[in-house]
């Protein structure tokens, strides 16, 4: 049974996802950040689907369980596209977007092939543990890609505040989620960890909404200021 806090987190997340899309439409940034907006729309759609699955089959049902994990894995693939779009923006001046597109297609094909192999090998026992592990791995790939992107931003001294904040918010959300899934794999009884993915589900649209609302496209920031150094 869902409590008021679950519904509150859910509603805020859903509203923020819609807000990000509406905000970028109003500020004429929809096309500039089209993969991000498609991702936000997809997340909103999945959230809406979750609500219907819970009411039709119940929170503890197998249907909801598999819907939750597999839709989230699909969202992770959409997230790859968002990250690749960020890579293209960071490397835009180097005119290497053709290579980025090629590498992205290769990565997507490799991920799909690896996932197919894993699913094919486990098709007789698609257990809870397997699903959580798949979720943990796909989230971790996103963390690695975001971390490499952050490294590139620092190395190339990227100054666009909006891009920097979008990438950092993404890094916070996915590293927390991947870490919580890994901890759940290690300690399946740790009940508190179940709150991390929904909270991060609110954090990401909230942080992106903040960036689109408060940070203009022209705003610049020296990345050296962001590095934490103990002098």
């Amino acid at each position, binding site marked *: 049974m869902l409590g008021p806090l679950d519904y509150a987190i859910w509603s805020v997340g859903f509203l923020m996802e819609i807000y990000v899309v509406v905000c970028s439409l109003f500020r004429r940034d929809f096309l500039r950040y089209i993969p991000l907006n498609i991702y936000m729309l997809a997340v909103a759609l999945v959230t809406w689907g979750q609500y219907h699955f819970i009411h039709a089959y119940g929170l503890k049902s197998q249907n909801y369980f598999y819907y939750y994990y597999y839709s989230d894995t699909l969202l992770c693939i959409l997230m790859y596209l968002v990250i690749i779009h960020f890579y293209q923006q960071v490397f835009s001046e180097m005119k290497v977007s053709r290579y980025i597109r090629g590498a992205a297609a290769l990565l997507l094909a490799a991920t799909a092939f690896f996932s197919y192999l894993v699913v094919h090998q486990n098709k007789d026992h698609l257990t809870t543990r397997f699903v959580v*592990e798949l979720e*943990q*791995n796909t989230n*971790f790939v996103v*963390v690695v890609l*975001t*971390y490499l992107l*952050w490294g590139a931003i620092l190395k190339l001294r990227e100054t666009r*505040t909006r891009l*920097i*904040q979008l990438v*950092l*918010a993404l*890094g*916070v959300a996915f*590293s*927390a989620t*991947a*870490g919580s*899934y*890994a*901890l759940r*794999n*290690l300690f399946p009884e740790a009940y508190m960890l179940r709150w991390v993915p929904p909270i991060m589900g609110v954090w990401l649209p*909230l*942080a992106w909404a*903040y960036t689109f*609302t*408060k940070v203009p496209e022209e705003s610049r*920031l*020296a990345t050296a*200021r*962001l*590095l*934490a*150094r*103990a*002098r």
Partner: protein
Amino acid sequence: MMAALICVISVVAFLQFFISYCRSILATSRKIQLSDRVREVTGIVSQNVAAEDFQRLLQLVRLCPERGDDQTEIRAVGTYYGFLHVIGRACRSIIPSLAAWSERERQSCSYFAAVALDRRISYSRDLLTQQAGDRF
């Protein structure tokens, strides 16, 4: 084994992303000079604001009418300040350089709170002026 490795890497990455994100919010306030008005209200004399002043400044911020657009960043910086406070206390005797870094970061948080207060005071004055204008 794999899960433990992913957990450790994710926690390290999370800390880096979280600290950098909060610093990106703080960086915007560093460019802004504090007005004489806010210095008078808070008793801040020097360019830097003391780390311990953060809570006091935040209480003053809460006394002012809400602008409606600064709640998210105040909350994020408040969380960051709490995190730094814990780090500072835990590392004071073990890693003094980390404790000193946390102190400098908390000073930035306090400066951010002072800037937020400055904005809210300006907003309150604007509201008062507007109300006085409507009355006459």
